[in-house]
């Protein structure tokens, strides 16, 4: 590891070594920036190690149509992004985009799904989404083994998935290869801005950088306030069931069930209160398992090998927050729920903007935290 230089040590300090922070760091170093990546240790509560690994488009953007366009942009860039990681690191992150399904177990569920998509499509300014309602016959052709209770669903050809643990590893390998200074177990305690540079104090040392990017998941809220930024978060908990590895039977990801590239089946569609990853609510797992078995009866024969909780990074309204500080120029906050789906955008589109020192309002202006400001009475 190289010695930290004097003066302003780095062009940019990225806070948070998860999928968001490491994707941004890769984009920044590719843009010629000298980057230091500050991270917590192995025991950190880390969504990058507890997620469902979907690269997902359908359903995104109800309430903020720009989010649909931003998501599709990332989905469309993911192939190039994955190929770049492969050539830089040799790691295949298992990206596939075969199209994804949402399954309905009753006519009521199917109607609700159709209404939800209609509301999404009816928003002014929404991009073409390509999501369609499909009948049971169409599902049978694409998803052999579906249960008799599945009446239909929705399909979006832009949906895919990847191996998110390998994605995290590939990003860090790429950063290592490009001599990015990675400092684990350096939880950031304070950020101060003076005379055009940032002093970042961690549990071990203080370092200086020309810019600072807060990509610390749910902890971004506290850090953002140190540099005049706002990042209201509302984390929640989800549970996942993982089966033994079996031969590939599922050719498409389902929003609540997917078969990984290594053969395990992940099941998860829960949303619970709480921020402790050490908690598991077993009755919720029973409901998840029962629904999954109604969708694919053969899952009932498989052995479950793991079950775990993950804490979702969640902004207060569920949409990404990308912002730059007015009072501390050079400070940025980047936090979002979909660190996997948006990884391509973060590396290929957002990081170059940060390297240039200014977010492009046309592309990402809608994701400013100004949307949370209460409108003054007219």
């Amino acid at each position, binding site marked *: 590891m190289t010695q930290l230089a004097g003066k302003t040590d780095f062009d940019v300090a990225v806070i948070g070594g998860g999928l968001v922070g490491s994707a941004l760091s890769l984009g920044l170093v590719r843009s010629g920036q000298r980057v230091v990546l500050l991270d917590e240790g192995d025991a950190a509560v880390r969504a990058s190690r507890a997620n469902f690994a979907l690269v997902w488009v359908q359903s995104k953007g109800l309430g903020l149509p720009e989010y649909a366009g931003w998501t599709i942009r990332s989905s469309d860039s993911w192939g190039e992004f994955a190929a770049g990681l492969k050539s830089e690191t040799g790691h295949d992150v298992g990206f596939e985009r075969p199209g994804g399904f949402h399954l309905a177990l009753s006519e009521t569920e199917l109607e609700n799904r159709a209404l939800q998509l209609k509301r999404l499509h009816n928003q002014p300014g929404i991009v073409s989404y390509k999501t369609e309602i499909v009948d049971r016959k169409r599902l049978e052709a694409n998803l052999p*083994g579906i249960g008799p209770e599945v009446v239909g669903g929705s399909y979006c050809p832009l949906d895919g998935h990847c191996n998110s643990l390998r994605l995290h590893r590939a990003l860090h390998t790429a950063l290592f290869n490009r001599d990015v200074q990675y400092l684990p177990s350096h939880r950031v305690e304070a950020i101060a801005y003076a005379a055009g540079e940032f002093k970042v104090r961690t549990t071990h040392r203080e370092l200086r950088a020309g810019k600072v990017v807060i990509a610390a998941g749910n902890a971004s809220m506290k850090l953002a306030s140190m540099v005049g930024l706002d990042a209201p978060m509302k984390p929640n908990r989800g549970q996942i069931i993982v089966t*033994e*590895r*079996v*031969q590939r*039977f599922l050719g498409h990801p389902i929003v609540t069930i997917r078969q990984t590239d*290594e*053969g395990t089946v992940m099941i998860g569609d829960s949303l619970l209160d709480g921020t402790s990853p050490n908690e598991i609510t077993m009755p919720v797992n029973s409901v998840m398992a029962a629904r999954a078995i109604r969708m694919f009866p*053969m*899952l009932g*024969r*498989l*052995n479950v090998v793991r079950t775990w909780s993950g804490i979702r990074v969640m902004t207060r309204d569920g949409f990404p927050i990308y912002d730059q500080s007015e009072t501390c120029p050079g400070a940025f906050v980047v936090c979002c729920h979909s660190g996997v789906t948006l990884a391509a955008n973060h590396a290929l589109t957002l990081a170059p903007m940060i390297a240039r020192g200014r977010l492009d309002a046309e592309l990402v202006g809608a994701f400013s935290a100004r949307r949370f400001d209460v409108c003054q009475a007219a």
Partner: protein
Amino acid sequence: MFARLPETGTKTILITIEGKRVTVRAGDSVAAALLAAGFDHCRTTPISGAPRAPYCMMGVCFDCLVTIDGIGNRQSCLVQVREGMSVELQRGKRDPVA
């Protein structure tokens, strides 16, 4: 490779391993029966295909997985041999439909 302890009894039964009739000792676990019959592995791994043999013999390591009577990924160290049982080596990932 393995020698029997003298006190383990002499009663034998017939099972099928990889389609061949094999005489095994009653009371043996399937893993013990495979080792006594000279098998040097019981499965190949799902990712690299490397051969694996029973290791811990007490239900912990999951290296002794086999297919028993058509059901894959069974821990052979935890299942006793039964007359007429059919045992196949576990080759890679389990077939979820079989």
